[in-house]
Structure formats: C-alpha cells, structure tokens
C-alpha cells in the first residue's frame, strides 16, 4: 500500500508540474501585463503544490531521493500527467480553455482528496484548494469574456474548446491505481469529481454562449505514461540543466 501511495502522489503531482511548466513559458509573453502576471502566478501555485507532493514521495521513499530527482530525472513514460496539461501554448483562447478545463476538474478532485485517509494527501489538498478556487474563478471569467465577447473572440474560444475536448475523457478514466486508492479510502472517486465538473462546464459554457462539441476521438494515455509528442520537448527544456550539469544547484 505504501508503494501505491507513492505512485499515486507522484501521479497527482505530475499534472500540475507539466501545466505549471507550460504556464511558466508565458512569463513575459502574456497578451497583457495583467494576464501575464495571473498565468505565471497560477504557475507558481501549481509548482508549489507539486513540491508538496514530491517532497512527500521523497520522504516515503526514504532512500535519498529528492523532490528535484522526481521532477528532473525521470523519463517520459515515468510521467503520468494528463495529456491535456502538456498541450502547447498557442493562442490565448487555447491557453484559457486548457486552464479552465483543468481547473474545473482540479477543484472537485481536491475536494475529494481533502477526505483522504492519508493525512498528508488531505493536508496538501486542503492547502491547494484555496489557491485553485482563485484559478477557476480567473479562467471561467475569461472563458465567458471571450465566448460572449466579439465575433472573433467567440470563434477562437469555440475553436479552442473543440480542439481540447477530446483530451477530457482521460480526466475521468479510472486507472487500476486510482481504483485501488479510491477503494482503500486514500484516493478520489472520479465519478463524483465528474458530477461537479459537468455542472461547472455546463454553467460556464452557457454563460459564455459556447457549444460543447459532440465527443469525437477521445485521447487516452498520459496517465499510463503514453504521451503526445509534446512531452519530450517539455522535458528537454525542463531537464536540460540537470542533464548537462548533474547535481547542479543554484
């Protein structure tokens, strides 16, 4: 069970790690100063949450592994982040759409984890959810603003939702590990997460005057370590310093 908790905590950390990295790429490139600061602040929150998960995994392992080893020294198939989180930054509507879909899932996920029998997972979730409420508020307001804005902003927001939609079934695909964690009272029940997620999506889409695409070609794999071509590029960026100069520190 100890080993499963490690794997689960690592998986929980991988999605905010990769999304946090994606958002950090926007530092200095946001469409306006305010959105630039907001997206990088969200990145910082997510990376902070990752540190809590990874520090916990490192402590459980107890073999000298550090949080940095977990972030910087694994290979692609060892990362179990959602495919949604590794999708690239294209236009602003796409960035906001990706954020909104993740936030709408992240909030009820953490609500479930607050009830975890594992005290540290519950503590991390209780801490993180306060930050994630701000994230969801920010991203859903922007979805509404773009969706119900001009003809052009509406067109782009709809296009982004259409392009990202096939990554969403993976959010609720229950892996063996997740099932075992749920049954033992340690992990989230994804069916319950989905009920709240569906409600958020419906409310925001309606207010934003956007249509949900008919589900086509759902993409799975991230949670099992099978990634899109994007992750390799992210890791090349993320891991360069540690690979080029092993054990370097600031």
């Amino acid at each position: 069970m100890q080993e499963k908790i490690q794997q689960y905590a690592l998986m929980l950390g991988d999605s905010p790690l990769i999304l946090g990295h994606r958002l950090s790429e926007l530092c200095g490139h946001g469409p306006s100063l305010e959105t630039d600061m907001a997206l990088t602040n969200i990145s910082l929150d997510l990376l902070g949450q990752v540190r809590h998960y990874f520090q916990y995994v490192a402590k459980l392992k107890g073999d000298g592994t550090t949080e940095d080893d977990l972030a910087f020294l694994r290979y692609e198939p060892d990362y179990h982040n959602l495919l949604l989180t590794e999708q690239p930054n294209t236009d602003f509507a796409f960035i906001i759409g990706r954020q909104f879909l993740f936030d709408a899932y992240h909030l009820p996920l953490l609500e479930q984890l607050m009830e975890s029998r594992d005290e540290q997972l519950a503590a991390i979730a209780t801490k993180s959810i306060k930050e994630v409420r701000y994230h969801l508020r920010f991203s859903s307001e922007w979805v509404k603003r773009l969706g119900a804005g001009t003809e052009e902003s509406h067109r782009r927001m709809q296009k982004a939702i259409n392009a990202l939609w096939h990554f969403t079934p993976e959010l609720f695909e229950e892996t063996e590990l997740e099932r075992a964690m749920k049954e033992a009272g340690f992990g989230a029940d994804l069916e319950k997460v989905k009920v709240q997620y569906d409600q958020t999506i419906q409310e925001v889409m309606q207010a934003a005057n956007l249509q949900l695409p008919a589900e086509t070609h759902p993409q799975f794999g991230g949670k099992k370590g099978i990634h899109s071509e994007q992750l390799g590029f992210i890791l090349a960026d993320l891991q360069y310093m540690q690979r080029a100069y092993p054990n370097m520190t600031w």
Partner: protein
Amino acid sequence: MTAGLVHIPMEVDAPLRSVSDPEIPVLSILDMGVVRAVELVGKQVHVKITPTYSGCPAMDMIAAEIKMALDMAGFNSEVELVLSPAWTTDWLTPEGRRKLEEYGIAAPLEDSADKLALMGQSRMVECPHCESKNTRMVSQFGSTACKALFQCNDCLEPFDYFKCLK
C-alpha cells in the same frame, strides 16, 4: 480565531520577531501567522512554519533566516514546514494588518466582501494612501501570489491588496 494564537516562549520572541517576509519587509513572521509552533528545551528550539501560498518562494529564505536569527541569539534550531492546518489570512494579527496598511498594502477583507471586490462588483477595498473606497480592481493576481492589484479612482495611485485566503 483561537487557531491563530501560538505560544512563543519569551526567550525566542525577539529573534523570531526580527525575521520578516522578504516580500513584505515591514511584516514580522509572527504578525503573519507563519510560525505555528515553537518548542524550547534548554537551548534547543524546534520551530514549525507554514507557507502562505504553496508556491511562496519566500519560505526557504524565511526558514534560513529563522535559523540564523536563533543561532545569533545562542540557540540551536530546527525548522520544520507543516501544511496542516492550512494558513489563512485570519492569522494576520491586528498589528500585522496595521503595518500592511502603513506600508501601502490594503489588508484583506472578509471572505464574501473579498469575492465581490475581486470580481470588480463592489467598491469596498480602501486605498491605503488616501482612504477612499472609490477604488477599482486592476488584476486579480498581483506582484506576489498573496496580492491583487488595485487602483484608487480618487488619488489615482495603484496599490496592492492582500487577498483573503480561507
């Protein structure tokens, strides 16, 4: 909030009080409610601190400065990071709120008022420079994770607002 009250042994009060958040230098870590427990046995001190926001980059520095301040006061110290119970702006002391305002950062409102202010739906955040409530939200996210950016419509000065975190 009683959960905000932490007993600080008199001997280590001064060194701990001398440590401040590097982002908000006027605010002692004791006024921020970041110090959650202090155990003193002889010259050995065990300090538990909790982060304001998960990604707060100041935490590592605060931990290092606590060790240094206690070391200079002749104590051996250990600093431990704890996550539970999670930090809330309720733990800011009245003294801390006063210092924030003096420094030019508006102190957090209550939860429901905070939401309305951040949605730009109400004018309740008071300008720390001219005390006008005729202010507007510029950005929900500000110069650090804990702050939002506001501007006063009367004196036109921009200012930071410390967001309510519950």
